[in-house]
């Protein structure tokens, strides 16, 4: 193969590196280019003229713009479809194929469409294939075969994506002369500036200009390199969203294929330049017909000769320059048609490529290149996204920006015309104005307001030069190259009645292809305007929607952050091969191999289940009983210290919201449990009552869900087991009865509490252990109970047991409309209370009799288990109920269910018909109670006398463990098992969970607040601990130990009598990480949206935000001159957060450090 047949000698502004060849293949054949070539330029240099087949008619297409918006060179690169071949740089080993052609680019079978093209006009499919209807699927299969585009891979490709957040004062979209000048001027004022350009180098259209332009480029580039400006090249601003939230898609990075940068900018300067507009005439899509900018790019950037003999049709200076460029490099410019003096071209002729041009009133000239320079489209997409509508200027024959919002400015070609000097001046003024707008918010303090916007008035406007209105010639041609829509089709659509721009667009699909109107919008509007007898102004444009340029799904997704929560016993479950159950963010053990056996073991001996995900709220203060009365349907005024009660919550519409137990640990101290999935919702529901409806109530609510490892020990031998590991609680039923709670030391771990409840229907103790000791207590119980037959059980066995006992699950045995009486909760509802959430609806529900009831059900055939959601029917198809829960009961050896039935079927003993999914109908009986096993509750009360004989089993020493797996070497420090490795790396992540954490709630202002730290700050205390003001009236003291009582006593002295002060040891409630090193902020910027610039987040800042999707306490706490951040999150998310920070730091060579001073 001969290479470089069209390659020119060295050009002054060329971007190729002739010393470095790049080899790739094109449709299977080896090809060669230079480093810096685009796919298109390398192929064009090799003499390729046809790059693709068009979408509908499969016409051969060549290069038109040779740039980012090139419609004729969408190619498949390796497994990647729809690559912009005129923008993507060639790389060694690339496999490039043409799209939309079969069997080959040269001979494409579907090119036959051209012959029947007259019948395939826009929307033809709406008019045919309707009869006979049964043939439509066959028609559709044929139609689908004509879908254009590349091929989606079938296996995940080897590409990586990520994202990061950025914060700028001024973001400049477009690195041409105006954009560069704007960035420089803004940076001069001290503003934080980012400059983005889609090309690999700055310069815009100057890059393909002459010596004078190149000199300006070099000067501006040097100034930018010297300024404090973050420059992103090979990067596209793809969208401007509400709040000046900007998406930038970046390529050409060392560690990732593509990165989406999400920028919060105070001002956006839009400087994209102009897009050259094609001219509509017959044959305007023949390979060899090019725009002037396309020709100049090929010649000047890539040193490629676009043809050998040319005709130039020009209406402006760029067309003239193209003619000069061509003449300079030896192309035979046979004819220049000047539109400014009335010249026009009629049609381009040729088969498979341009052969001749027919000029108006003149000769037909043989040539292989026709250059058109007929005007510009202002790519106002980003302005549209900011709510601005472009305004048409007839004298300039193009749209210009309309009224802009205060935080968006436009400069450069999009804003008007002028000499290079004037454009640069305008850019500079625009950059200054953009920076001025934020003078007031510079301080970086959270509450500073932006200065009043000054408007665009101060920027001298650019002139708008006259330009002939050239859209369509005297013949019909293609308006939309990507979608294969001709002017004739648009005119036809208008004549049919699709006579507004939106309808014509939708009907013909013009502007809806990959270029999204960048090339064709104005021509489309012009053609529709002409057809409707209107003008461009009144016809208006369609709305340009994001993205500005297509964005890969991979970049949009970035690294996918899906928080995972794990219990402290997670590793044990995994070691036992537990089948995982994904429940929201939690991963729980569903079973350990044999759920019925696990359930039987609970009935016969003793079992233990990990119930850590149960929501737990610590409630303190004098008004807790009032709060409980408000949110639960039952009564709470008389709950004694040491007692526990089951409660049901309803929403204001009377629908069951959640349930759980609440125990009173002390006079003003309660613990509430919620369902696992309801934990967050209930907390927020309670806070809503306290903050907005009942602000007079003094209650502090603290979520402690994962501060405790929770485990339920259930079965007739559970009391015997506990007696072996608990020595400070009397367990005999007379002293620790059903529904009682006790503080306890379990297996040597103090600070536990446990209560007797009976979800499984057995004698059982739910033990809540400070999380760091969860695994220790769990394994101690298993060891102590070995001879009693202890066995872990999973969620599935628990489901069986609770169903045997008839305990409903909110969300399974109730749904989004189940009011409390329907769920058989009449016993709990106390309508004589003054007020509680949902009370009116329950009053009215009780008065009705039309609601479905939750009942126990047993199929007559004990061997049949109706699948959950089986319907209960009457007659052939009337639905009168459904099964909500069903299992085979290991205890009873028969199938058991819960379900809803219509009121007339709710009487115990009624026979109902259950329709199984296979269609079989089976009879079932309504039971007298929900409970199938032990309805009287004798088993769970287990009040038979107990001699209290125990066989004390010594536990291993209690060692606390962080939720983050320890990296060896490791050892025990202060009772914690921690890593002891010291890393010398400049960027280090260490687990500081073992640090004491004291949670304090107190009045926002007053003595305590003054002693601790102001909100938003971290203050080093006299004892070396760090007091962090994370919220209003809320502090976390991080220090060597958490002596809660001592802290509380000290604070009580400061507080007045009426002030509620709460101190809780959260050492086991929170995981804590420290990230240290100069790159720490960069690492965090990939997973945290907060502005970490020292101006916004200086040393000693304390705040709460989201990191990798997890609510996180963040403290900047520099050490020894190094930037350092503390990150705290819920215990259960600790490992997830640690892994996410490590992953974010991978490109910065992050190292794991041990726990140390």
């Amino acid at each position: 193969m001969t290479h470089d047949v069209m390659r020119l000698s060295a050009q002054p502004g060329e971007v190729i590196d002739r010393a470095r060849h790049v080899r790739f293949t094109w449709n299977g054949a080896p090809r060669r280019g230079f480093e810096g070539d685009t796919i298109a330029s390398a192929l064009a240099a090799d003499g390729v003229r046809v790059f693709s087949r068009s979408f509908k008619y499969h016409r051969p297409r060549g290069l038109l713009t040779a740039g980012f918006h090139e419609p004729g060179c969408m190619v498949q690169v390796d497994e990647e479809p729809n690559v912009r071949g005129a923008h993507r740089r060639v790389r060694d080993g690339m496999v490039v194929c043409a799209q939309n052609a079969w069997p080959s680019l040269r001979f494409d079978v579907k090119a036959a469409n051209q012959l029947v093209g007259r019948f395939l006009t826009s929307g033809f499919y709406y008019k045919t294939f309707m009869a006979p209807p049964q043939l439509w699927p066959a028609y559709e299969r044929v139609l689908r075969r004509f879908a254009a585009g590349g091929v989606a891979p079938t296996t995940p490709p080897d590409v990586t994506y990520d994202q990061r957040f950025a914060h700028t004062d001024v973001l400049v979209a477009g690195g041409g002369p105006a954009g560069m000048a704007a960035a420089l001027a803004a940076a001069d004022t001290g503003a934080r500036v980012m400059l983005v350009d889609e090309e690999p180098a700055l310069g815009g259209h100057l890059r393909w200009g002459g010596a004078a332009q190149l000199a300006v480029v070099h000067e501006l580039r040097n100034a930018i390199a010297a300024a404090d400006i973050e420059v992103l090249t090979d990067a596209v601003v793809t969208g401007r969203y509400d709040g000046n939230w900007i998406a930038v898609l970046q390529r050409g990075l060392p560690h990732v294929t593509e990165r989406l940068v999400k920028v919060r900018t105070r001002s956006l300067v839009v400087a994209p330049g102009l897009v050259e507009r094609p001219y509509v005439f017959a044959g305007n899509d023949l390979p060899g017909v090019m725009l002037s900018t396309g020709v100049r790019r090929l010649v000047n950037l890539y040193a490629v000769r676009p043809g050998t003999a040319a005709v130039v049709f020009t209406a402006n200076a760029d067309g003239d320059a193209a003619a000069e460029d061509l003449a300079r490099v030896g192309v035979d410019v046979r004819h220049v048609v000047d539109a400014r003096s009335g010249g026009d071209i009629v049609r381009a002729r040729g088969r498979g490529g341009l052969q001749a041009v027919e000029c108006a009133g003149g000769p037909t000239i043989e040539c292989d290149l026709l250059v058109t320079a007929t005007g510009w489209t202002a790519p106002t997409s980003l302005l549209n996204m900011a709510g601005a509508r472009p305004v048409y200027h007839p004298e300039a024959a193009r749209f210009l920006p309309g009224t802009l919002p205060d935080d968006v400015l436009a400069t450069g070609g999009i804003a008007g015309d002028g000499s290079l000097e004037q454009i640069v001046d305008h850019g500079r003024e625009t950059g200054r104005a953009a920076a001025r707008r934020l003078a007031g918010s510079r301080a970086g303090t959270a509450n500073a307001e932006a200065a009043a916007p000054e408007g665009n008035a101060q920027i001298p406007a650019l002139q708008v030069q006259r330009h002939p209105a050239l859209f369509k010639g005297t013949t019909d041609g293609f308006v939309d190259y990507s979608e294969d829509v001709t002017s004739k089709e648009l005119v036809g659509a208008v004549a049919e009645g699709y006579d507004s721009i939106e309808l014509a667009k939708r009907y013909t699909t013009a502007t809806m292809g990959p270029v999204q109107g960048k090339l064709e919008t104005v021509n489309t509007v012009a053609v529709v305007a002409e057809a409707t007898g209107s003008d461009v102004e009144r016809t208006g444009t369609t709305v340009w929607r994001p993205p500005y340029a297509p964005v890969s799904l991979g970049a949009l997704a970035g690294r996918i952050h899906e928080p995972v929560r794990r219990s402290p016993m997670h590793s044990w479950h995994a070691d036992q091969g537990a089948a995982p159950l994904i429940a929201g963010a939690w991963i729980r053990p569903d079973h350990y191999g044999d759920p019925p056996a696990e359930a039987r073991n609970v009935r016969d001996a003793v079992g233990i289940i990990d119930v850590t995900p149960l929501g737990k709220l610590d409630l303190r203060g004098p008004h807790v009983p009032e709060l409980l009365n408000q949110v639960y349907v039952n009564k709470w005024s008389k709950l004694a210290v040491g007692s526990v009660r089951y409660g049901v919550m309803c929403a204001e519409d009377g629908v069951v919201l959640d349930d759980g137990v609440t125990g009173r640990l002390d006079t003003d101290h309660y613990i509430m449990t919620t369902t696992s999935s309801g934990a967050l919702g209930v907390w927020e529901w309670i806070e809503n009552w306290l903050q907005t409806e009942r602000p007079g109530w003094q209650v502090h609510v603290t979520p402690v869900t994962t501060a405790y490892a929770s485990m339920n020990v259930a079965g007739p031998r559970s009391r015997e087991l506990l007696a072996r590991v608990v020595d400070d609680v009397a367990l005999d039923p007379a002293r620790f009865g059903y529904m009682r709670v006790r503080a306890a030391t379990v297996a040597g771990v103090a600070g536990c509490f446990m209560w007797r409840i009976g979800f499984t229907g057995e004698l059982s103790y739910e033990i809540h252990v400070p999380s760091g000791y969860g695994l220790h207590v769990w394994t101690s119980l298993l060891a102590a109970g070995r001879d009693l037959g202890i066995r872990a059980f999973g969620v599935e066995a628990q489901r069986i047991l609770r169903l045997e006992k008839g305990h409903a699950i909110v969300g399974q045995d109730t749904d989004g409309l189940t009011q409390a009486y329907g769920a058989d909760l009449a016993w709990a509802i106390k309508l004589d209370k003054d007020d509680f959430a949902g009370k009116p609806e329950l009053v009215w529900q009780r008065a009705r009799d039309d609601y479905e009831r939750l009942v126990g059900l047993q199929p007559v055939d004990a061997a049949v288990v109706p699948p959950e959601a089986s319907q209960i029917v009457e007659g052939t198809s009337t639905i009168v109920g459904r099964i909500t829960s069903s299992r085979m009961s290991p205890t009873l050896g028969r199938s058991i269910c819960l379900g809803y039935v219509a009121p007339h079927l709710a009487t115990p003993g009624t026979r109902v018909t259950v329709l199984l999914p296979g269609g079989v109908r089976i009879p079932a009986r309504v039971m007298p109670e929900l409970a199938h096993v032990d309805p009287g509750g004798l088993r769970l009360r287990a009040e038979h006398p107990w001699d209290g004989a125990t066989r004390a089993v010594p536990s291993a020493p209690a060692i606390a463990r962080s939720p983050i797996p320890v990296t060896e070497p490791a050892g025990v420090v202060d009772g914690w098992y921690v890593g002891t490795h010291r890393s010398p790396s400049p960027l280090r992540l260490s687990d500081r969970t073992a640090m004491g954490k004291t949670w304090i709630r107190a009045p926002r202002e007053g003595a305590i607040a003054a002693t601790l730290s102001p909100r938003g700050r971290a203050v080093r205390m006299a004892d070396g601990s760090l007091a962090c003001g994370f919220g209003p009236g809320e502090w976390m003291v991080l220090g060597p130990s958490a002596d809660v009582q001592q802290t509380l006593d000290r604070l009580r002295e400061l507080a007045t009598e009426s002030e509620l002060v709460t101190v809780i040891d959260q050492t086991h409630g929170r995981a804590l990480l420290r990230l240290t090193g100069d790159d720490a902020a960069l690492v965090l910027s990939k997973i945290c949206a907060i502005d970490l610039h020292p101006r916004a987040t200086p040393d000693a800042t304390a705040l709460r935000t989201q990191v990798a999707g997890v609510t996180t306490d963040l403290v900047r706490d520099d050490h020894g001159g190094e930037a350092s951040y503390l990150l705290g999150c819920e215990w259960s998310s600790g490992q997830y957060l640690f892994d996410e920070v490590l992953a974010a730091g991978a490109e910065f060579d992050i190292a794991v450090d041990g726990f140390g001073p």
Partner: protein
Amino acid sequence: MIELHCPNCGRRNVSEFRYVGERHIRPDPDVADPTTWRSYLYLRDNPAGWTDETWLHRAGCRRYLVVERHTVSNEIRSIREAMPVVASEADAPHAQPGRAQSGGSGESA
């Protein structure tokens, strides 16, 4: 991504907050007739313009906030904490009832 200027935490992405819904008054449950109560449960002004809403700064200060927002432009005009009810105040703040006015079922197709 709009920002809410939290009175406690400063400017934060809206994704840190949970939208609760239009603010409205909870009727006295002991005297409310079904029409009154269900108006409270279900009826919304839903204006195309400025409206007072309740938001929760879930990932920040965890305070319920009263936000004055324009529902067409999504501009925020004012934002403050849902302060304690003052009985005599005509427009005393009240909360959204029940589960959050949902952003819809997860599945829409």
